[in-house]
């Protein structure tokens, strides 16, 4: 079905469109809208020269190194009504994460998917408020997330957060919900961890 405008794909003209962005991670370099944020160590941020490769986000070699991308603390997304869609792949035996958060370095006030370092662990949905992060496990194991690209959709409502993977609802949680505005982010963590991201979309609902 053809739409005359991109605007009208998601909203009629009688609805004032809220903040909404999407990123294809295609091109020669990472767009300057993203901050390359080395939380620990020095990572690399390169567009892949491979079919479907997207952005290759690689942590430094240190055992606790963490390399991330974010919006330089320009936080335009709601902690109570927003959605984040990511198409990504993680690395075996390392940690990857993506979603929306207030502050990447402290991990406070956010909603994120975490692929853990142990391959048989479940992929987890995390939400965080000011003091702690709590996880809800899914039936989707990390080894699957590490083997191929999958579509992760996280969305947050006034009292619940959700994660679907490849269109199937995997987790719902209602504790430790964020209360501060958020920005998109992704990170690779632990020595040489690699995350491939080829699509990210965030919008307020």
């Amino acid at each position, binding site marked *: *079905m*053809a*739409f*005359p*405008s*991109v*605007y009208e*794909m998601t909203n*009629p*003209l*009688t*609805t*004032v*469109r*809220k*903040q*909404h*962005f*999407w990123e294809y991670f295609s091109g020669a370099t990472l*767009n*300057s*809208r*993203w*901050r390359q944020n080395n939380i620990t160590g020095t990572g690399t941020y390169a567009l892949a020269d491979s079919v479907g490769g997207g952005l290759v986000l690689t942590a430094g070699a240190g055992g606790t190194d963490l390399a991330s991308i*974010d*919006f*330089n*603390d*320009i*936080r*335009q*997304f*709601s902690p109570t009504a927003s959605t984040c869609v990511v198409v990504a792949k993680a690395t075996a035996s390392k940690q990857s994460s993506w979603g929306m958060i207030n502050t990447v370095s402290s991990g406070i006030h956010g909603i994120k998917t975490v692929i853990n370092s142990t391959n048989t662990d479940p992929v987890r949905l995390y939400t965080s408020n000011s003091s702690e992060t709590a996880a809800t496990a899914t039936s989707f194991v990390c080894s699957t997330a590490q083997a191929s690209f999958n579509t992760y959709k996280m969305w947050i409502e006034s009292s619940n957060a959700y994660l679907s993977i490849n269109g199937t609802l995997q987790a719902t949680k209602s504790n430790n919900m964020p209360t501060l*505005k958020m920005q998109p982010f992704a990170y690779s963590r632990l020595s040489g961890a690699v995350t491939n991201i080829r699509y990210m979309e*965030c919008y*307020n609902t």
Partner: protein
Amino acid sequence: MTKSIYEQLPLSSIPTSSEVVWSDTGKVGFTHSGGTITRTGSAGWGLSKMQSDKTFTVGEGIIQIDFSTLGAFASGSLMLGLNSGTLGYYYSGTPYNPADFSIYMAGGDQVEVYENQVKKYGSGGGRNDADKFRITIDNSGIVRYFCQPLGQGLYDLHYTSTVIASGTYFIQTNAYAGNSPSGICSSSEQTLPPLKQRFVETFSGGVLDTDRWETKNNYSTNTFEMVDEIDGGFKILNNASGSADGQIWFNGKDQFAHNGSVCITVAKAHTITGGGEMYIGLTNNTYIASGSVKSTAGIRATASAFFVQTNDQTTNSWTTTGVSKDTDWHTFRTELNGSSCVGTVDGTATTTKTSNMPISAMEPSMEIYDNAQEVRVRYFEVYNT
């Protein structure tokens, strides 16, 4: 199967649907007049079949058929859709070849999808005689079923087939009840024309994309920055103590037609007071507020109202939209069609301006004039038509 954005959205033109031309070859139990069909004869699924004169091949353009029942239709049972091979009956009869993709319009669910006589989807609810239906097959063979409730507004997607269409199809209709069901049907094929110039900017991120936009201090100094607020977008703040003028634009790259383009923005006159002015839309030059020679078409805000503004490189003029200026976010749309500039605010207030139309290609621009004024934007889309 993944569908391309190219195919989904930015068709520069959508062909007008035409009435289906029905074939008399093999026809049983139907009459037709233009796009209107009428069931005749005795009741029975094995006593009715008819097909379109035209065939449609997957991959040669988007196939779309629209149809509805005609008038009161409480007791009829009309099946309409797309089939391949030989014209068939829905149930019994020879050859028995039910439609590959069809919608059943009867007294059951609002939308009932049948594929090769098997019910694949039921929406629940009840069908209204005014409901309209649509089946599409895209170039990759994905079949989608839609309904436009009461024949008004957008078509809602109800079901996407798990079967990928391939080859050549004709439109097929079958009906059970004799002498009652009638329907109207149109069809179209959409080929993919070369995509015309289009851009979308969502003003999200740590900084403005200066590979695309140039920030310009036309007069004095201004602040250009992303807004660290939920739904904040991007702002230009005129922070001079006296008159100043700030603008973002494409640095002179004029890719959009003065006589065939659409501009959609979401913006707010955050602070427009006194002699302050905001402009958002298309131009071919800088410093729009100066009113000098340039082509311009867009939305202007003053302290009192929103206007549709145009400039024909001789005269700069504006017509009120009838919407008072406020500090809310609004969706502004202006369309240039060669003879007029049609502006809407939030999809409703429509203003048509025909004087001083722009005469040359233009580019996106947002500008603010005077001191201590501020304008914000979080969406900007322009495309040629």
